[in-house]
């Protein structure tokens, strides 16, 4: 207990991994990475590594769950048992059930569900390595996977966490900062719709800190959004001539 914990932010405003306060971890985003699914995506943010896949629209099961005027979305956010320090029990934890719900609700706000009555769209998010920010990275990948499947959406959505660490607001907290920080706020937005699709807060913030955190999140989300667009456009690169039908 006597061990003195290292400060998370240095005098000159650097974080323990060397990042500036408003700097996110290196990101990699790819679309169309799993062949069996109708649409898929992969995201890496630092050491966080996540696959997302979309199946459907397909028949809703059981059939009584089908809605006559729109598709239903099913979403499963799951962490592999080896994705964390130690070993996580393989089944769905309460945390995973809650996160599956908030991610699904975020996606329901952007998918044009009315287009596919009586059907179901399944979204699977599998975290193969968790190093903070998994729900927002998972949502970012899921949104991309939906677009990859050609399912009509109002906009893409992307998400990132902001944290309060030693009194300062930081973008994309690391696991260490998340654990020892004062607050963690996952945010996801559909930027072109000018809207928030997911918002949670764990920890304490006053209203001016909240505003600062939200605008910092917007900054990170704009970067992720551009990467999503690039990943999608890549599928069409080199298509210089489109045939007539």
């Amino acid at each position, binding site marked *: *207990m006597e061990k003195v914990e290292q400060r998370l932010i240095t005098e000159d405003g650097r974080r323990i991994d060397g990042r500036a306060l408003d700097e996110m971890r290196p990101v990699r985003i790819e679309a169309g990475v799993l062949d069996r699914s109708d649409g898929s995506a992969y995201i890496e943010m630092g050491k966080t590594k996540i696959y997302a896949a979309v199946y459907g629209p397909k028949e809703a099961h059981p059939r009584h769950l089908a809605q*006559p*005027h729109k598709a239903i979305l099913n979403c499963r956010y799951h962490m592999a048992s080896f994705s964390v320090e130690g070993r996580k029990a393989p089944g769905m934890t*309460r*945390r995973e*059930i*809650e996160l*599956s*719900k*908030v991610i*699904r*609700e*975020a996606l*329901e*706000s952007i998918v*044009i569900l*009315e*287009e596919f009555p009586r059907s179901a769209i399944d979204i699977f998010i599998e975290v193969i390595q968790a190093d903070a920010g998994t729900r927002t990275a998972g949502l970012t990948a899921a949104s991309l996977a939906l677009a990859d499947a050609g399912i*009509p959406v*109002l906009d893409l959505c992307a998400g990132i966490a902001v944290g309060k660490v030693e009194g300062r607001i930081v973008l994309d907290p690391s696991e260490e900062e998340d654990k020892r920080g004062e*607050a963690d*706020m996952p945010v996801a937005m*559909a930027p072109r*719709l*000018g*809207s*928030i*699709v*997911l*918002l*949670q*807060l*764990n*920890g*304490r*913030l*006053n*209203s001016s800190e*909240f*505003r600062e955190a*939200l605008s910092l999140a917007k900054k990170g989300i704009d970067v992720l959004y551009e990467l999503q667009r690039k990943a999608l456009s890549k599928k069409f690169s080199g298509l210089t001539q489109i045939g007539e039908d």
Partner: protein
Amino acid sequence: MYRIGEKPYPSKIMRDKLYELILRGERLDGRRPYQYRPLELKTSIIEKTDGSAMVNLGGTKIVAGVKTALGQPYPDTPDQGNIVVNAELLPLASSFFEPGPPDERAIELARVVDRCVRESKMIELDKLVYVHGRTVLVIYIDVYVLDYDGNYFDPSVLAAVAALATAKIPLYEVRNGDVIAKTESRFGLPVRKFPVSVTVGLIGDKILVDPTSLEESAIDTSIVLGWSDDDEMAAIQKNLQGLIRFDTIDEVIRVSREKSVELRTKLMEVLGRVGAPS
């Protein structure tokens, strides 16, 4: 071309009606947009608990009970007591709820209550350690929704906080490494904050607080904000599908803060009457 935003008949006309009323500063049940339903709060209603409370918020009724026991701390917090929150949406409360293990809504409710209590640092958990790394106090909070007319978050947080604030636990003594309860004298938990949550519904560019279940089916989306005191938030949960427009956020924060002060004042009135620690 895709047709968007076509909701089925019953909720479309309800949405239009609700929005029309909100524009006039009114609501279906006669309330104003920023007005809560009547709140009733009673504590110490279940004798076999260490602390309990019942809350009626309009037609939504919640009961919360607190029990404590000795147990092992979590490996990552060897110097803190534990909080365990469970919530159930009982089938007797609404036809929307079904028997069976807690579904995702019940789990979400429990976790939002947990975050309000834990992140606000309501209870000084480091004062509930008897043997470091081995024996601590475990506080079980069970929340039951008995009657449901929308917004189960705010009354559940109120009930949990009131039950915790009025709970009485035995005095524990450590003798030769054993922890022994002296049941003849009971003490209150070390309470520092009184978190409350405010549920805000969004419809177009307008907002309202404390939606009923009818309003919940008509609004675009909703958001729960947990305030640990007059200045600080401890938890937020966007709940339900739908978009929150950037230009409504400032008003959401302002109104929820104002309402949290109002709810906390009512809570303190009740706690003051029963002589809770301040």
